């Protein structure tokens, strides 16, 4: 139902459009960063680093517009939740994009070293992290709190893969197989993908808050059903 004050509707619409644009750019940055890493494409890595500025700009605009909406329209109920949740989602997206930039920078450095076939070990972890990010944004755009709430379980698989990869790359490092720097970069890429999983879970949790006014953050830890304190 429309607000009596039409400009309010317009602001809320623009706000959501900016989040969606930010999500599209973030996903694209992650795809390109991983492609740059897996195909040793340094030019693509440069492009990801440059594109991050657009995500940063959008984050600033989302914050500005959110502040303006809070100030001018005094949103309440679902409108208030929409603005608060979207501002937090924008922060998560910006961090995901930062991780994509981190991966691109490591890809650039790895491309200067002898190629390591083991870089491909990251693919299943990447596929899961990317899928989790896509699900998180689907939950937001399709107003689906059930999907948002389901992400934590999928994130546990990502945590498991990350631990396995860290162990495997550490073994290579300790065995002095190839340059130590390469294994360290790959461990940190694995860590970034694991963090992207966590941030996607955060987006899902904010969607649950937005749609059903339920705060499920940290619930899985309370229930003792996951989470890794060592991470």
């Amino acid at each position, binding site marked *: 139902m429309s607000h009596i004050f039409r400009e309010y509707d317009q602001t809320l619409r623009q706000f959501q459009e900016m989040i969606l644009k930010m999500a599209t750019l973030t996903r694209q940055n992650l795809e390109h960063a991983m492609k740059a890493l897996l195909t040793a494409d340094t030019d693509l890595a440069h492009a990801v680093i440059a594109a991050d500025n657009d995500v940063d700009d959008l984050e600033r605009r989302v914050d500005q517009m959110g502040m303006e909406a809070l100030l001018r329209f005094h949103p*309440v*109920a679902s409108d*208030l939740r929409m603005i608060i949740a979207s501002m937090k989602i924008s922060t998560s997206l910006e961090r995901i994009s930062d991780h994509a930039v981190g991966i691109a920078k490591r890809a650039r450095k790895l491309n200067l070293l002898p190629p390591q076939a083991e870089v491909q070990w990251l693919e299943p972890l990447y596929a899961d992290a990317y899928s989790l990010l896509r699900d998180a944004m689907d939950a937001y755009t399709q107003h689906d709190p059930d999907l948002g709430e389901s992400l934590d379980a999928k994130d546990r698989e990502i945590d498991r893969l990350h631990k396995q990869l860290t162990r495997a790359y550490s073994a290579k490092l300790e065995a002095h197989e190839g340059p130590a720097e390469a294994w360290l970069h790959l461990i940190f890429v694995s860590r970034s993908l694991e963090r992207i999983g966590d941030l996607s879970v955060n987006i899902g949790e904010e969607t649950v808050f937005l749609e059903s006014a339920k705060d499920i953050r940290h619930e899985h830890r309370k229930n003792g059903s996951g989470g890794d304190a060592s991470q």
Partner: protein
Amino acid sequence: MASDSPDTQEPRPAIEVGGMDFCYGHTMALKDISLTVADRKVTAFIGPSGCGKSTLLRCLNRMNDEIPGARVTKGSIRVGGIDILHKSVDVVKLRREVGMVFQKSNPFPYSIFDNVAFGLRLHGSVVGKSELEGRVEAALRSAALWDEVKDRLRESALGLSGGQQQRLCIARSLAVNPRVVLMDEPCSALDPIATARVEDLIRELRERYCIVIVTHSMQQASRVSDQTAFFYLGELVEFADTMVIFSNPANKLTENYIRGTFG
């Protein structure tokens, strides 16, 4: 939002309205209203014009008795456990128990002192001069006005600013030690600074009184009240903690009204 940590025990009720209908002549203005207003809390009545919120407020100290044909046709209203609709109730005494502050400040054309002393003299509850002066000072202090007027108590109340006049009216109702203070849009004629002073005062007064406020300002309701009741077309649609009403109301009508998507 005006919310504190949850109380460990349920506050006792100051006002209990049970299944009440109210009519102006043949027109029903309130239908089957039931609500319990807690003591030492601020309760806001909100809703669109004509929803019945001011009518209900005026029922609580029988101000509607002055309107020909206006009457409660069903149900009950109890203040401090006493049935205020009973024939034996002395409405002058009732209005001492249940004070009222109106939309527009209405000081009498007397001195500041006499305005506050008026109720005390009317009810004959004060005998000596020094006791009267003490009660007037206490009431002016409670209304956060004493420091501004203590040196000009004998000057006309009409020389005060709008915000000061409204606080003087609050002092006048507090002077007789009421149980409940009803406020009908008390800040609608005030500037933002005077409004902030009155709102601050309302928050202070809740320590000692039950306050019921009718307001058209959603922001004011969310700032000052502990509980909020939403009325529509003479019916009580939702009554809950203010934090709940303004963050996650249970009723779609309430949500549409507070979000401004009504109609």
